């Protein structure tokens, strides 16, 4: 009896009474009601010439209930943790008049969108009619550059899909005369869609996204308006203004940047040695130099592909070359790697060598063609490094948009170029039986050792200047960077300095100042240590480059 009851209830539990009993028929009267209620929150007509759609938020009505965030997720069928709207907080005021203000925010559909400008594959479109900045999901290769360029932290990368997503102002709904999800979901009607005059945004960008601690509207000319009847309370600060957290490390990019710079640096050194070395050395050493330099570059580009969400579409990066520094970087390094490969092939593939020798004469290989190829490789490599610098400068993040980035990238190029070739030299020098070892050792190596000591010290000094910002009275971007170096990432910072000082200053100095000739074992150990420590130091420097940058963002919330 009892068992039967359990089974009966378990069975009943799985039956769906409600659906059959109370299912609603699709009711077209519902649709019209839906439109009636929300139609006053969206413009009646599409924008005229010189206008575009924009979000408008009445701050006096936004109470921070965050229904807009939930609704965006549901009405757009997004991933389980995804929403294109978020709500931040600013607070302050005075003891007598404290103030708290929630700030709902989504894409600002900028006049000069940084996401669009930086995209290497033209996966963004700004509609000439509505002004809506739309992301073309199928075109996206998942490079995530837009997540770095957008000062409002709008595009969000989905690891699962390998692409970014962003708000399209529910264009599909607007076209059908319906309100976007967030607009329809706001219980107090704080969010609406309006049309703004483009020239008004251009003339007075500061009137838009005028929120404490929001990024400057001059960066991208956002179109969202935050309105309030009240006088803005004093001392308003975003709730997360003082919460300083390390940024994403973008590990593949750390390797990509460091190794491309090593490779380019190596080619620059090879280019210079090409004139300096005598034929004897060249015959022995060049193939190894070239091979190492090329392999480092190839490895860098290989690793960089890991950063892409959809690497198979990487070739699309050529189409953004007109405006995207990332596209240019990819193209430059693509050309650089191809040229480097050709150059390496000449040395290493017998038949190629023979073929060239037979057709073009022995002189050719070592002569003009070879020189042109080497020069071109070096030039494209250097252009690539320059593009790398621009990729980060264009984000306008203060720590990246600084002459320091230029100096860091090129000094890494120089230091690692020298270190790599010095290392290659001393290892292979052992194989040269009758060469002018002494001369080679005494002049080139000493020059190189001095070179890395000086360059490393310069680099360390430049990098350390940021730490002076710890004394800033205000919580500046640079102070936050310095804080991140000193506190959360202290071990990395120490590691960066120690490895650099040991590997690129102390050990070279030991070699330079020792009186007795070193044994073969010591040479290999010391030079090996110089190479490994210098390389580690540059990896760590680049790790800090990514993790201590303080991005722009809209106000968030406090805590974790």
């Amino acid at each position, binding site marked *: 009896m009892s068992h039967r009851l359990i089974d009966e209830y*378990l069975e009943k539990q799985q039956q769906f009474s409600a659906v059959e009993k109370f299912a609603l028929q699709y009711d077209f009267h519902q649709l019209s009601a*839906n439109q009636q209620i929300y139609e006053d929150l969206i413009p009646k007509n599409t924008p005229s010439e010189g206008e575009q759609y924009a979000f408008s938020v009445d701050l006096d009505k936004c109470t921070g209930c965050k*229904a807009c965030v939930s609704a965006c997720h549901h009405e757009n069928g997004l991933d389980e943790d995804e929403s294109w709207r978020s709500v931040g907080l600013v607070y302050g005021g005075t003891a007598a008049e*404290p103030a708290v203000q929630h700030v709902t925010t989504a894409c600002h559909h900028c006049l000069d969108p940084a996401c669009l400008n930086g995209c290497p594959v033209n996966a963004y479109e700004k509609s000439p009619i509505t002004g809506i900045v739309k992301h*073309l999901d199928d075109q996206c290769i998942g490079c995530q550059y837009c997540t770095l360029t957008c000062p409002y932290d709008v595009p969000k990368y989905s690891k699962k899909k390998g692409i970014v997503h962003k708000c399209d102002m529910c264009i599909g709904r607007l076209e059908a005369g319906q309100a976007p999800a967030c607009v329809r*979901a706001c219980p107090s009607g704080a969010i609406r869609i309006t049309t703004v005059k483009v020239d008004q945004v251009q003339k007075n960008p500061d009137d838009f996204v005028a929120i404490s601690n929001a990024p400057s509207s001059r960066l991208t000319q956002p179109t969202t308006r935050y309105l309030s009847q009240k006088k803005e309370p004093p001392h308003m600060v975003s709730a997360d*203004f003082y919460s300083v957290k390390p940024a994403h490390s973008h590990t593949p990019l750390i390797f990509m940047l460091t190794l491309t710079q090593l490779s380019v640096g190596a080619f620059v050194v090879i280019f210079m040695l090409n004139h300096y070395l005598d034929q004897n050395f060249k015959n022995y050493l060049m193939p190894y130099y070239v091979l190492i330099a090329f392999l480092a570059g190839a490895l860098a580009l290989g690793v960089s592909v890991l950063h892409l969400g959809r690497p198979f579409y990487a070739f699309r990066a050529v189409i953004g070359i007109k405006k995207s520094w990332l596209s240019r970087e990819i193209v430059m390094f693509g050309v650089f790697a191809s040229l480097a490969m050709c150059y390496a092939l000449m040395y290493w593939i017998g038949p190629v060598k023979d073929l060239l020798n037979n057709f073009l004469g022995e002189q050719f290989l070592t002569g003009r063609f070879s020189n042109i190829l080497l020069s071109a490789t070096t030039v494209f490599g250097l252009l690539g490094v320059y593009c790398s610098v621009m990729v980060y400068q264009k984000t306008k993040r203060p720590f990246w948009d600084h002459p320091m980035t230029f100096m860091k990238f090129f000094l890494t190029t120089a230091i690692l170029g020298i270190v790599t070739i010095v290392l290659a030299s001393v290892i292979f020098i052992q194989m040269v039986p009758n060469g002018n070892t002494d001369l080679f050792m005494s002049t080139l190596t000493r020059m190189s050792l001095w070179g890395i000591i000086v360059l490393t010290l310069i680099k360390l000094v430049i990098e350390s200047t940021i730490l002076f910002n710890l004394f800033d009275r205000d919580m500046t971007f640079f102070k936050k960077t310095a804080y991140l170096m000193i506190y959360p990432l202290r071990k990395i910072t120490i590691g960066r300095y120690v490895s650099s000082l040991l590997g690129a200053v102390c050990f070279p100095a030991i070699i330079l100042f020792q009186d007795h000739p070193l044994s073969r074992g010591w040479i290999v150990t010391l030079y090996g240590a110089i190479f490994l420590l210098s390389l580690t130091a540059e990896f760590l420097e680049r790790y800090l480059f990514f993790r201590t940058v303080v991005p722009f963002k809209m106000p968030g*919330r*406090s805590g974790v």
Partner: protein
Amino acid sequence: MIKKAKDKNFFGTEYLAQLLHQKDGPLMQELALVSSPLGKLPKRLLPDTMTNMVCGFCSTGCSLKVHLKNNQPVNLTPDLEYPVNFGEACPKGWEALTPLFAPDRAVSPYIRERTSGKLTAVDWDTALKTFVQRFKFIQERYGKESLAFLSTGQFCTEEMALLGALAKFGMGIVHGDSNTRQCMASAAVAYKQSFGFDAPPYTYKDFEESDVLVFVGANPCIAHPIMWQRVCLNPHQPKILVIDPRKTETAMAATRHYSIHPKSDLVLLYGLARILIENNWIDRKFIEAHTIDFEKFKAHVMRFTPDFVSPSTGLSVEAIEEFARIIHEGQRVSFWWTMGVNQSHEGVRTAQALINLALMTGNIGRPGTGANSITGQCNAMGSRLFSNTTNLLGGRDFLNPDNRNKVASLLGIDVHSIPAQNSWPYDQIIEGIIAGKIKGLWVIATNPAHSWINQSEFREVIKKLEFLVVQDMYYSTETAQFADLILPAAGWGEKEGTVINSERRVGLFKKVSAAPGLALADFYIFKLIAQYWGCARMFEGWFSPQTVFQILKKLSQGQPCDITGIEDYAMIDRMGGIQWPFLLGKELRDKERRLFEDGRFYYPDQKARFIFEDERPLPEPLDEQFSFMLLTGRGTSAQWHTQTRTEKSPILRQLYPKNIYVEINQEDAAGLNIKQDQWVMVETKRARIKAQAMIVQTVRKGQIFMPMHYVETNKLTFAAFDSYSRQPSYKICAARVAHLPEYRI
């Protein structure tokens, strides 16, 4: 032809162009919107049918339109026509389906071995036999009263009634209470004493019709966003007056914010009453016709002069006088309160001070008026009437023999099976465990190991029990972790029944989703327990929630909460919820109705009472060491109580800080050299915990605020109770804040 054209393009420029620059494709289509009767919806989630049901979080009682596809709930949108929420919902409402699919759902009964703590999944037969055997053993050994239950305001009225009847009439349990004790007991007692019945008089339309709204200890912007929506719909440009120690979101939106000293609300309200009386700003006619004891009240408040009230509350004399004048000048003044009033050592009297203001100014029974308690849980109001805990079924009295006879005859049971004594309230049940009088406890859909005031003590106390049963959706709740037996319950959306919202509206829960594994609706679990206990015959007529609803109608007949006019669930569904009272034979003309339009209250003389008392000192005074006032309350609109459900949603998790935090005034923080986001120690005489500092101006100097949703908070709170409602005074205790390194935890 078409095929040919396509082939031609394969190696043609179009293909190449597409390969290089693909403007549309499967990824775009995945998010493409298509037309539906609900407007544009994602194609993937296009429903094949829909049904409306009331939300299962708070007492606002919004209706949600659940979208079903292949008999599975895939999405929802708030119901546009429901006379509560008119198409809107808070973030919890939008996310209501997500917690159903959490990985820590209890999918079978579990028995815990006490020594190893290991949980073993068992079948229902074993679980029920264990339940009955252990509990009967305890009852035989220690007496019938040694068994108690703690229930909830989160499930259906039919389930509450069945549980209450089963436990008290069938199993002989005397002591049972509900977590509604923690949120609105003070309001319930206040109404009962003042009006003669626990009857919140308002309808949400009153939010729209007032010209003055007074909010006391309420932050509807965050706690009840959809009620705030109704305030926003008010076309009369109302004056909004907020009494709250903190500058909350609602205080920000107010015309005036009165940042009083914590727990000085009673003094302020008596002070206002005095000014109104002194200036003759009162409705003499109403007072004489419909109330008693006004003169006594008048004599009582005379001592609350502005000069006395001002230093007690921290408000200026001018501010207090202006406050009174605004009330006087208002044509339709409504008074609203929530937990700031209820969760107090003198909550009943404070609520009654508000009721008194409404009565003396005639601000009751008219549109836009009333002394209105905003409730907490989705069915706290059902619990107040039908849980058979504090009140006998239908808002009756256990001590009244007529009431017992009436219920016995209505249910066709022996009147002697109805206890002739009152149940212990929550705190006394816990005292009973300490005293060794309660040996077995049955906890249903509530989480006292998180929520009970002075939680550390509670956790120690329940270890004294010989047997603890927890019936819940999740095996992971803080309380379930102590359970000897866990019974897996179906949740909101997996069962049907009715709930009653803040404005007395009976709404409908429906079954739209399959419960996981062996989980059963609480209703079925109670029926099975009746069967195994051997009292199934008593509940033969309690066949299904729908038949129990008919029983509830019978029980309500002749009571103020009469719902005999509601035919069945279909009618509730059709009418968009129905407010009580709704008598048989009446026509439902107005979807939004308020009480007392005729000025007749529920006492036999039909008059309301002025009830008052002297203010009492703070339960835990501050001292030199513990010099901060620790306030607690709701954190964000995305968090619900002990978070057993809301923490399951990745969307909601983004909307509140993951770590516990303490809001501290800027000046205090500077004095203690505490920095934003720094981990600090918060200590009371009960416990010391770690929390992240959030430095604000919105909390006054000398006060700190912590949200209640984090499990650590109630380790700190001080167990004081309102002496009439036995509601815990969560809102305030003495604390200190310090740097971490001073201590080791």
